[in-house]
């Protein structure tokens, strides 16, 4: 059986692991939810430029005093780092589609073994709209998914085939859950890391998707830093 982990531990474990993926100078867009936590865990010696699609390249942490004239995509007030630039939406999405964004980190409702992603709408529920997600996944060089391994009710989120409307087809590069890390290469889904104490057979049972196991399977990075 997979261990039941505290919600906060889950969120921070996933964020901490993703924060290790970026090279110095990488341009990264963070979605809402767990992805927003990623900026807290960028390792020392690495500087990442955070882009928000509503028009800021070089977003910094929440300022001491809120100023609604500087907000991020989730509507929260942000600071601008020294060296930041402010741009219009057309320019911002030009950067995204044009291959100038190294990584986008997003949540997921479903990911399947072909790298398809569904994260914008559950038919039958109120339709929120896709916002910038379809552009982000079609344009970013690397699409990193931050998600719990299963739904709150214990259902599979890592599927053989997505059942919900897609955000992007064959776009996912990497999935990080509280138990494991998967990478997608050449149309194959490959398990590359397992969190400490997690059994491979338990992961297979909790994962509907069929995946290969990397010959270099290792312990999930970042977990050693947990208190």
């Amino acid at each position, binding site marked *: 059986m997979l261990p039941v982990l505290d919600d906060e531990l889950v969120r921070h474990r996933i964020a901490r692991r993703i924060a290790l993926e970026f090279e110095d100078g990488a341009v990264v867009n963070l979605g809402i939810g767990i992805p927003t936590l990623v900026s807290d865990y960028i390792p020392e010696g690495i500087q990442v430029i955070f882009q928000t699609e509503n*028009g800021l390249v070089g977003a910094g942490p929440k300022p001491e005093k809120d100023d609604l*004239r500087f907000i991020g995509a989730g509507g929260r007030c942000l600071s601008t780092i020294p060296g930041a630039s402010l741009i219009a*939406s057309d320019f911002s999405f030009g950067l995204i589609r044009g291959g100038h964004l190294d990584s986008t980190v997003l949540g997921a409702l479903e990911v399947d073994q072909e790298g398809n992603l569904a994260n914008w709408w559950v038919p039958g529920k109120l339709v929120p709209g896709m*916002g910038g997600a379809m552009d982000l996944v079609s344009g970013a060089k690397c699409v990193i998914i931050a998600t719990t391994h299963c739904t709150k009710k214990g259902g599979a989120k890592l599927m053989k085939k997505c059942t919900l409307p897609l955000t992007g087809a064959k776009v996912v590069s990497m999935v990080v859950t509280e138990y494991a890390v998967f990478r997608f290469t050449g149309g194959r889904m490959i398990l590359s890391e397992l969190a400490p104490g997690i059994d491979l057979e338990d992961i297979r049972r909790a994962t509907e998707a069929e995946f290969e196991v990397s010959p270099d399977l290792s312990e999930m990075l970042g977990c050693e830093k947990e208190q």
Partner: protein
Amino acid sequence: MPTHIIKPVMSAEEAVSYVKTGSSVMVGGFNYGGIPYTLIDALAESKTGDLHLISNDTAYEGVGHGKLVQNGQVRKVTASHVGLNKVTQSLFNEGKLELELVPQGTFVERIRAGGFGLGGILTPTGVGTVHEEGKQVLEVQGKRYILELPLKADVALIRGYRADRYGNLVYFGTNRNFNPAMATAASLVIAEVDAILELGDIDPNDVVTPGILVDILVLKGDSHYASRT
């Protein structure tokens, strides 16, 4: 409305009287930022209806152009995201509102196409998703693209920071968002600004929207969000 080189400065009420029943109206803004709040309040007050609202989102219930939707002044919304406003979602569900959802980058690029005389744009965004349905997909140099058509409007209500007498505009912070694109794509452009300066007080190097695109200037009011953004 005749073209002036020196742009008329109007009250918000007078400016929005140019928005007629049945008009298509672009409204700048993303979430709380860059919404022409004073113009929107006047338009909400005017009760002008049957509008086609073209805006990235519909703000929040009771905030900005969320009010237009709530008042029943809007027949159709073209947006990328309406998840922040339950009223928009409910009216759509009840069949009382037409809703066209467009990926955000596509949304602004369609406006650019409208404003810059292009017959459409080709984008990879949405290929292989439901967004592709009913649209022409073209293969160019081995890659598939959706053909997206231009968006134009009768009126654009936009938010600038400072204007000069010619209507040249600069923007502030993340308030810029869709405003410069919308200024290119409407027959009548009304800009709400913090201040109107004399000619020469804005360095031509800093101008983002040339005044030739702007028709009417309105000073922002002191409502909760107008004063904070």
